[in-house]
Structure formats: structure tokens, C-alpha cells
């Protein structure tokens, strides 16, 4: 008999800090200008369809995809293009930005109309045309996920509502406020992609969602396009990183995504709950992805909130409009505190895959001093992928590519559990990331 990995999740339990769980999503409008990067996804970005001085309207396509993986980019406010220029993105790369100055009218483009879809190819094309990428944080293009490699079929759709990162509640609020859209998105996806089973996975700190979502499921039961094996709810223990794709598939389906593989390799399609909701919205209204629901929180923020903001709005303006800071922020994170990216400048724009903006005060932003590793093994016990973080850390420090490969550095999901638990406060994940870069540059394992 083949040995099967136990379904126990190694991981950590950081303080939840879900302060905004009762803050309803507030639509923030009235931005004087936005600056929309033409590359906010995994894969190549877009080239600009507009030039300085062009008038644009909400939903108008302003970026034409460059590759098979790219999705178009749309204007999120109406007004005039002020400039199209290359600037640095929050992840450090240089991309083209379209700056739009608002005319204050918020006119919607005539291009915007609900798509008409009859088959699988049409559905995937429509999803791509909406500009949709994975909204959970990774920005993996959704239409690519929906096309499994030849020879593979998708049999399960997992809706990721785990939201295991501290602070963030945007997915929680989406489930509470748009349950019918979520179910509709699931039905559309399952129908067109021929997926018989759908599972909504959430952590048990969101038990209030069970009744809300179950009521919506009951409403559509028996409908002609209801998935053959049904839609079910799966409540998982609250633990970080339950919501990491590979971890979630193991917990829900007991399937192991092979190293370097994708969920499609084991017949699973994982969609963030925000992504699946947006699919339903797009098929209702035809409005491309031009807004994003984000949580604003952190020790420096005066009023934590959940906001729907235009993509491309400057973070500094979003924070000011939502109540501002009570003290100067020392560190600003795009995303959650475990996996988010610390940004260098508050004028950076809100991106498609932003799900939170965290403003941390001096105390929370303090960088601990690293001391010698005492080999306590806490990182090894915390790693959800059963890697050996200290071994990888040491190998990366001496750039030992062979050892990095031998210990499977590329299977690291960068969840940060190892660094979180380290009593010697070592920057393990930082070095493991360097190790992954070394392996990528030196060639395949």
C-alpha cells in the first residue's frame, strides 16, 4: 500500500486581529485621479491602447493583452489620460502606467454589456475579457486556471473562503453581503467547465457564513444547471495557512499537488471567493474588473474598514478618504501580514489582487534582530509543506544550489510560518526566497 500523507496541517496560529469583521463594504468614489499599471498579474502584461489626452470612460479597455496569459486592463474612472509612462511597481519591477484625471462624471463606457456565452470556449474567453485574475493575492490569470493541460480534466471546484491571514476580512464580508452572487458564480463555472462537484471551504472563525451560504445553496438546489454532485460547505479549523492553494486541496480533497505542478494536475480548480463572485457580477452587468474590495486596517489606521475602491487609486488617498491615520505609519503592507508585500511609497496604486492595506505603527513595524539558530526545530514543525527551513536557509546563505535542490526549495509556498515561529528571529523565508532565485537562475533541478 502506498504511504499517504496524514491530513494534519502543520502551521501557526497568529493573532487574528479581524477588527473589521462587522464593517460593511463601503463604496469609495470621487478620486481625482488614478494611475493604473498595465501589468498586475502573473504572466506578461498589456500594451497601452490610449495615449495622452484621450478621453476614457469607466470600463473602457485601455490595455491590450500581450501574451496568452495576459488579461486586458480597463479604465476605472472616466476622464482624460494625463500620461502613459513607465514607473516602478510595488513589487520592484518597472511597468507602464496609465494616469487618468477624473472628469467627475463617472460615465460608463458603451463597451460595457453583459457577455453572451453558449459554450466552454466562450465562457473562458468572456472571463479573460473581463480582466479577471485571481483576487486572493497571487494574481494568477483565471482563464488559464480554467483550461487544464491536455489529458487532465477538472472534477472539483474549491471556493477558497478560508481567509487565514490575520486582519483581512474582505472575503468574509463578500460572503455575507453577496452570497447569491457567489452561488451564481459557482453555478456558471461548474456549468460551462463541466465540473460536477463544488466545495466552499472556510475556517471555523467564519461559522456565521455557514447558514447564509447554505440558505443560498438550498434556493438553487434542483435548478437545471446545479452541479451534478452538488455544492457543499466545508468548515476547516482556523489555522494559518489553510487558505494556501496546495494546503487547501490537501485538506479538502486529500489530493497532493506534485512539486512544480498546478491544481489542475490533480483535477481541482481553486478560486478565491472574490473571484467567483466577480464572475457572477460580470455576467450580470458586463462591467470589467475595475474595482477591488479591500480591508484597511493596522495599528496606525484610525478607522479600520472594508472598502470597494477603483483599481489604480493611490493608497494614500484611499486611506485618507476612509479616515486617515492616527499616527504616522512606519510600514505599509499590501496584503496580509504573513504574505503581503511591504511597499516603499504611499502613492502606489491599488492593484487587482490587493485584498488589504495594512498600516503598521513603529512598534508593529520593528524589525527583530537576528541571532544564531539554536536548531530548536520549531520551523520544521511549522512548515505546512514539510520542508527543512533551517537547512534551506543555510544552503541559500552559502549559495549551495545542489543542496537547495536536494531539499526541494522550489516546493516552498512562501507562507512564512518558519520565520513567524523562529525564537532566534531569523529571516528564514527571506533567505529561502533568495535560494529559489539561485535555483531558477542556475537552471532546473
Amino acid at each position, binding site marked *: 500500500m502506498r504511504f499517504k500523507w496524514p491530513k494534519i496541517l502543520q502551521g501557526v496560529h497568529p493573532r487574528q486581529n479581524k477588527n473589521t469583521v462587522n464593517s460593511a463594504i463601503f463604496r469609495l468614489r470621487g478620486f481625482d485621479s488614478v494611475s493604473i499599471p498595465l501589468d498586475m498579474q502573473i504572466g506578461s502584461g498589456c500594451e497601452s491602447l490610449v495615449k495622452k489626452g484621450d478621453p476614457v470612460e469607466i470600463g473602457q479597455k485601455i490595455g491590450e493583452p500581450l501574451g496568452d496569459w495576459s488579461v486586458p486592463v480597463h479604465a476605472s474612472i472616466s476622464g482624460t489620460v494625463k500620461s502613459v509612462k513607465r514607473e516602478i511597481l510595488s513589487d520592484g519591477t518597472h511597468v507602464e502606467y496609465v494616469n487618468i484625471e477624473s472628469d467627475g462624471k463617472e460615465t460608463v463606457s458603451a463597451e460595457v454589456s453583459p457577455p453572451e456565452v453558449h459554450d466552454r470556449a466562450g465562457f473562458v474567453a468572456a472571463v479573460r475579457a473581463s480582466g479577471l485574475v485571481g483576487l486572493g493575492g497571487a494574481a494568477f490569470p483565471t482563464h488559464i486556471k480554467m483550461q487544464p493541460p491536455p489529458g487532465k480534466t477538472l472534477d472539483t471546484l474549491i471556493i477558497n473562503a478560508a481567509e487565514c491571514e490575520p486582519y483581512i476580512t474582505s472575503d468574509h464580508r463578500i460572503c455575507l453581503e453577496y452570497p447569491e452572487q457567489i452561488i451564481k458564480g459557482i453555478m456558471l463555472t461548474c456549468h460551462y467547465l463541466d465540473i460536477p462537484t463544488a466545495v466552499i471551504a472556510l475556517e471555523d472563525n467564519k461559522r456565521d457564513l455557514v447558514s447564509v451560504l447554505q440558505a443560498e445553496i438550498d434556493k438553487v438546489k434542483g435548478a437545471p444547471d446545479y452541479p451534478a454532485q452538488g455544492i457543499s460547505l466545508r468548515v476547516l479549523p482556523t489555522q494559518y495557512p489553510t487558505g494556501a492553494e496546495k494546503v487547501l486541496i490537501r485538506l479538502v480533497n486529500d489530493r497532493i499537488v506534485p512539486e512544480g505542478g498546478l491544481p489542475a494536475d490533480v483535477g481541482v480548480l481553486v478560486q478565491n471567493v472574490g473571484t467567483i463572485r466577480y464572475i457572477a457580477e460580470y455576467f450580470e452587468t458586463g462591467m470589467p474588473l475595475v474595482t477591488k474590495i479591500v480591508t484597511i486596517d493596522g495599528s496606525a489606521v484610525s478607522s479600520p474598514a472594508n472598502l470597494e475602491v477603483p483599481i489604480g487609486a493611490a493608497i494614500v488617498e484611499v486611506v485618507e478618504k476612509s479616515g486617515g491615520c492616527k499616527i504616522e505609519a512606519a510600514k505599509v503592507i499590501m496584503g496580509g501580514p504573513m504574505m503581503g508585500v511591504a511597499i516603499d511609497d504611499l502613492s502606489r496604486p491599488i492593484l487587482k489582487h490587493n485584498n488589504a492595506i495594512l498600516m503598521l505603527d513603529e512598534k*508593529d513595524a520593528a524589525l527583530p534582530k537576528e541571532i544564531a539558530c*539554536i536548531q530548536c526545530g520549531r520551523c520544521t514543525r511549522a512548515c505546512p509543506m514539510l520542508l527543512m527551513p533551517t537547512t534551506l536557509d543555510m544552503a541559500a546563505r552559502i549559495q549551495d544550489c545542489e543542496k537547495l535542490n536536494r531539499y526541494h526549495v522550489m516546493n516552498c509556498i512562501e507562507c512564512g510560518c518558519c520565520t513567524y515561529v523562529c525564537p*532566534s528571529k531569523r529571516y528564514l523565508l527571506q533567505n529561502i526566497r533568495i535560494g529559489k532565485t539561485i535555483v531558477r537562475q542556475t537552471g532546473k533541478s
Partner: protein
Amino acid sequence: MLRVSSSPHIRDNSSTQRIMLDVVLALIPMVIASVFIFGWRSLLIYVVSVAASVVFEALSRIVMKREQTINDLSAIVTGLLLAAGLPANYPIWMVVIGAFIAIVFVKQLFGGLGSNFANPAVTARIVLAVSFATETSSFSVLPQYAPQSALTAGASQLDLVTSATPLGMSAAEVPSTLDLFLGRHAGSIGEVSIIALLIGAVYLVARGVIDLWIPLVYMGTTVGLITLVGGDPLFHLLTGALVLAAFFMMTDYVTSPTTVVGKVVFAIGGALLTFLLRMYSSMPEGVSYSILLMNILNPHIERWTAHKTIGGNYGKKRRQVS
């Protein structure tokens, strides 16, 4: 200016200093028991050993022009564990030499905390036992806890009297099981009182500093093997350095494996050596030698028992590539 750094941006509130403090706190019951069983002379040994360890740690960092590390409290732990393995009337200057060997030779010359290949206290005890065989194996105890044969006429009530340890006594003189458990007999000052050590061990487990894999497997295997060849399990569990080593020395993070399988292999290996040395060797210090040998094997055990990552390809294809 905004601060940027690699994620994660939050850390838990553990610290190496706190772990070392927990070990020191867990060793306090042992120190108190020593004073009851061996008088104030034993406290002097603890104080000298800890003070010398800290001073040598500070001095060696200064001489090596490295950042000062006495704040991590690991030198205090080493000092306490070194003293725990010595007899009550041990010459003070020898204690200082022991601390020098532990801190300077075994720990700092190899790079300090985290880089030592063996447990400093255990290695120093072995060096002392080999260098000063008579002093290191001449055990004593307060007269009220010594067997009748060890008492000489005219000795005052507060003087230590020399006595064999239970492992070296004739069957008729062996103290009761309760006395063994409480530690009322001659021996190294830290290893005799099983109850004091267990109180500390419970604290360490409750604080999550150690888990029970190494101690239970080590003690279980040792006692099991001894029983197989006809030894008394309870007697062997309660005598010698077995319990002290199981909870406080074998579990030293730096010199023991990190994975559960590794810990079990490490503990079984240590138990085999302890069994052989205790039952068939003429030398004392069986437990110390077993720990030292397993410490040396630790990097290999760690490599053999490394976790295999979930979904990792360990199959044929991989071997052909490399």
C-alpha cells in the same frame, strides 16, 4: 520613509532568551534539592560554575572580537548543568576548569551558541572525569542520608561524608525506593533528586520548550534493555544521571535532531550506549559518554531523517538526474 522587508511582517513572541530562561527556571528545583541533600557546599559549586561560565563566555567573545552574547542566558544553563554532574565536595578550582572547557573549548571555539558539536556541560564533565578521576568519582552526602557503613566516629552533623552511589553499593545498603526518588543518597549534586528533576521537566513540557519524544524513548529503551538482561527497572531508572540526562541534556536543541523520527533514532541510539556502558563497562559516566557519542552522530541522523516534502519527487527520475 516607509520600512520595507521580506514577509512575514509579524513574529510570535518567543525568543531564545526566554527559552533559556525557562530551562534555568526548570533547573531551580534541582538546585534547591541539592542544598537539602548536600548542604551549602553544593550551592557553592552551582554559583562558581555559573559565574565562571558567564565570565568565560563574556571574555571569549571579547577576545574573539565578536558581539557579546551573555544576554542569551545559555551560559547560565551550561553552568548549571555542568555543576549538576559534579560531587558535593568537588574542588572549586576544578569546577572553574570544567567551565573553561565547556564554554571556551566546546562552545565558543566552534562558533558559540548554535554551532557547538556537542553538549558543552556533558563534554566538560567527561574531560573532568578523565583528568581528575579520583575527585570526580568520590561522592559524598550529608551524614543523615549516608548508609551506616560510611559514617565514621566523631564526624559532625554538618560535614559531608564520603559514600558510594547506589549504583556502586552492595545490595544490603541500597536506599529505599522512596529515598531514591527523593534523592537522599550520595551522588552528583544535580542527578540524585528525581522528584526535583521531574518538577522541572513538567514545567519545560508545559511551556513547550521540550517535547517528550527523546526523554521517554531514551528512558524507556534503556530501562527496557536492562530489564531484559535481568536488571531492576525501577532501580536503574532512579539512579545515576538517567533522568537528568533524558530531560535536560539529551534534549539540548543544538545537539539533538529536529524531526520526530530523528529524535526517536537519537534516543534509541543513546539508550543502547547507556545500556552497554552501564551494564558491561567498568567505567562510570556511561550516560555522559552516550550523549557525547550521539551528539557527534547528530548531523548524520539529522540528514537521514529529514522530512520529505509533500508532493516532492523522490523517485527514480530524480536519481538519474543527479
